[in-house]
C-alpha cells in the first residue's frame, strides 16, 4: 500500500518537473533539438539537474541491501551495447524529433486537454504492444529498463 502511495507521489513530482521545465511542451523540446534554428539549450539543464540529483540518490540507495518498502531493487539485467539498442534508440529518436514528445511529457500533456496528446499516446501504446510481440532480450517487462 505504501508503495502505491510512493508511486503516485513520484508521478506527481515528475509531472510537476515536466511542467516547471516546460518539457511537457513539444515546441520547447523541438526548439532544443533545432540546433540550426533559434536554438534553446534549456532542456540540457533539465537533464543535468535530473541526472545530478538521481546520481547522488542512486549511489546512496543502491548501497543499501534493499529499498525501504520493497524486498529488492528491480534493475535491468541487460548490459552491453548491441544492434537492438542502437536500432531502438534511433527509431525512438526519429519519433521524438518528428513530434517533440517522448513518453513522459506525452502522458503529462493530458493536463492540457488537447486531442493530439491522446492520439500520440494511443499510437505509442500500439507501437509498444507491437514491439512486445517481437521476441528478444530487451522485451521482458519490469527489470529491463535502462
Amino acid at each position, binding site marked *: 500500500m505504501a508503495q502505491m502511495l510512493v508511486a503516485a507521489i*513520484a508521478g506527481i513530482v515528475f509531472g510537476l518537473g515536466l511542467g516547471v521545465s516546460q518539457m511537457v511542451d513539444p515546441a520547447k523540446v523541438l526548439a532544443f533539438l533545432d540546433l540550426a534554428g533559434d536554438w534553446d539549450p534549456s532542456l540540457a539543464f533539465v537533464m543535468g539537474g535530473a541526472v545530478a540529483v538521481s546520481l547522488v540518490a542512486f549511489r546512496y540507495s543502491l548501497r543499501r541491501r534493499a529499498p525501504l518498502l520493497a524486498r529488492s531493487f528491480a534493475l535491468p539485467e541487460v548490459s552491453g551495447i548491441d544492434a537492438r539498442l542502437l536500432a531502438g534508440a534511433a527509431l525512438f529518436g526519429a519519433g521524438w524529433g518528428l513530434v517533440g514528445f517522448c513518453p513522459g511529457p506525452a502522458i503529462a500533456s493530458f493536463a492540457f486537454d488537447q486531442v493530439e496528446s491522446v492520439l500520440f499516446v494511443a499510437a505509442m501504446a500500439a507501437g509498444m504492444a507491437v514491439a512486445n510481440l517481437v521476441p528478444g532480450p530487451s522485451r521482458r517487462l519490469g527489470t529491463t529498463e535502462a
Partner: protein
Amino acid sequence: MENFTPVSALIGGVLIGASAALLMLMNGRLAGVSSIVAGVVPPGSVEQAAWRGLFLAGLVAGALIHRTVIDPGASITIAAPLPALLIGGLLVGVGTRIGAGCTSGHGVCGLARLSPRSLVATLTFMAVAMLVVFAVRHVAGGW
C-alpha cells in the same frame, strides 16, 4: 536563444531527479516512463500495472497542478500534423521497447547509474532527433 529558461529548466530537472530518487529509495524501481507505460499495455500483469497506473496518473496530476496553480498561463503547442503525430507515436512506442528505454530510463536513470549502454542510447536518440528536426524544419520547411 530568446526563450532560454535555464532556472526553471534546472528546477524542473531537480524535481524529475527527486521523483527518480524517491522511486528508487522507497520502491527499488527505476523511473523509466516508457517501461512504466509498457507495463500497463497488454500483455502485462495486473499486479505490476497497479503502481504503474498510479505513477502515470500522478504524471498528469502533477502537470495539471503546475498548469492550474503554479503557472496558470502555461500552454503547449503540438505543431506536428496528424500523419506525423501518429507515425511519431508509433516510432516512439516501438523504439522505446526495442531499445528498452526513453529520455527518462536511459537519459536520466541510466546516465545516473553510469551505464555505458544508456549513454550510447541517449547519444543515439538525441542525434537522430536533431537530424529529424533539421530535415523537417530546414530541408522540408515543415513545423
